[in-house]
């Protein structure tokens, strides 16, 4: 459904991805994890077809929400969501309304997106992606600045989308949340895939590349690093 074949990319002369291969299909919720600078965003941009040499998926089937996505103008939340209909060239009110409903901002449709809270603006951007009625959602840190309850709410929406046959590929910084919701975890380190498995199996790798270790009870809890000289 979407994928990369031995894909390499460099940014400003610095090599960011080294021969990464990845395939994903319907019904999967893939969490992309890894330390800062591992190439997660570049990986997602490659999937979205934004890098030279990457195949650009059909815009009617794929929606991409970039990191810290925002709207330059004070459009209403309903207008932002309606931008998701651009690939179809229509103004399908039902699709827009449904997307607003899914993301919990239906009541805020008339509010200006630059005058609501950061979390509500984030939901508006997500509603824009859902309004396209895509088969594939590519999301870069979709819950980065949401409070814990909102994080769970949005991730549950994404999980349900995948359960209904959609494909979600999301860069998630919060590894515990990723493990709780995703069906598969890709761990990137220094531009290479170091693990690609169900979250339970990929988690030790994620822990290692963060320089942390997994809890002894095999729970999905990451312990703080032991630092010498600190009690």
């Amino acid at each position: 459904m979407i994928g990369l074949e031995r894909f390499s990319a460099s940014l400003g002369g610095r090599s960011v991805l080294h021969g990464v291969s990845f395939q994903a299909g319907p019904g999967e919720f893939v969490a992309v994890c890894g330390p800062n600078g591992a190439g997660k965003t570049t990986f997602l941009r490659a999937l979205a077809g934004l890098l030279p040499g990457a195949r650009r998926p059909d815009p009617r089937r794929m929606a991409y929400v970039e990191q810290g996505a925002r709207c330059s103008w004070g459009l209403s939340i309903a207008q932002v969501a309606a931008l998701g209909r651009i690939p179809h060239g229509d103004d399908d009110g039902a699709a827009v309304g449904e997307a607003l409903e899914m993301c919990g901002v239906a009541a805020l449709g008339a509010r200006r997106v630059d005058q609501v809270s950061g979390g509500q603006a984030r939901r508006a951007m997500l509603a824009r992606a859902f309004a396209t009625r895509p088969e594939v959602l590519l999301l870069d840190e979709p819950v980065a600045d949401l409070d814990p309850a909102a994080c769970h709410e949005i991730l549950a929406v994404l999980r349900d989308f995948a359960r209904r046959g959609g494909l979600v590929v999301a860069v998630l910084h919060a590894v515990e949340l990723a493990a709780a919701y995703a069906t598969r975890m890709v761990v990137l380190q220094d531009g290479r895939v170091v693990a690609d498995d169900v979250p339970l199996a990929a988690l030790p790798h994620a822990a290692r590349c963060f320089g942390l270790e997994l809890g002894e009870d095999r729970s999905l809890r990451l312990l703080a690093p032991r630092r010498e000289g600190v009690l």
Partner: protein
Amino acid sequence: MKAALRVLLVAVCVLIGVSLLVGAAGFGVPDWLIFWQIRVPRTLLAALVGAGLGLAGAVLQGALRNPLADPGFLGIGGCAALGAILAFYWGLAAEFAIALPGGAMLGAAAGCGVLMAFSGRALSGPTLILAGVALSALASAFIALALSLAPNPFALAEITFWLMGGLEDRSLLHLAVAGPPIAVGCALLLRLGRRLDALSLGEATAATLGLPVRRTLVLASLGVALAVGAGAAVAGGIGFVGLVVPHLLRPFFGQRPGALLLPSLAGGAVLLLTADLLARAAPLVLPMTSEPRLGVLTALLGAPFLVRIARQVAL
């Protein structure tokens, strides 16, 4: 919103009517020659040039995602003036009627090209404004160079006067030369509405929505160059229309860039027709012997606006 647009269109018609009935020959329908050779060209040029500048401002603000974008302020007007002066300077303008607007349009296109080339990077915000300031400075420097090398004092006076912008004594020939490029440029720009909406999410996201980003920016540059260049060729340096008009219209039409295009076209015509009427009325009520230059008037009206908008925008 529909009602607001209707008000604007009615205002354009009323102002055109008033402008046709008022002039140095007094109020009312003047004789045939004055009407056709003086008032019709002046009125229609004011409407056309204003419409082009207003629309160009709205498109630039949308394409560059910056409420401070304006063809004059970003140096596109300056580049157009430079192009026209070069055509003038080399005597091309005296030989071919099309050389002056042609030079102005080429200059404007070059200016747009430079600005849009920045657009891959962090264009919104101070970078763009600084690029525009640099472009303006460069254009002014070359204009000053051309002026200082002017072959005779008459050429110097003529160019200086033209730079201040104005629409008096324009003929049907001016209308014939500038009208078509402005109309084509506006037609091009009016079609970009939905694409500008998509660009408000940033260039990367717009690309994933299926938008041909580079082609859109090229089309926007082309349309702006036609509308602003041809306008500058006949009206000289008229600034701030493109900045002020979209800003004034946002409270009525909303912030969506695509929803502002048609209103900005009409609003630009209203603004410049009004300014031109004020310029004509000024000698009647103020102690001055000749009309104030139109470009001076729009700058006097527009500069305070720039300060106001700059205070609202957190760069």
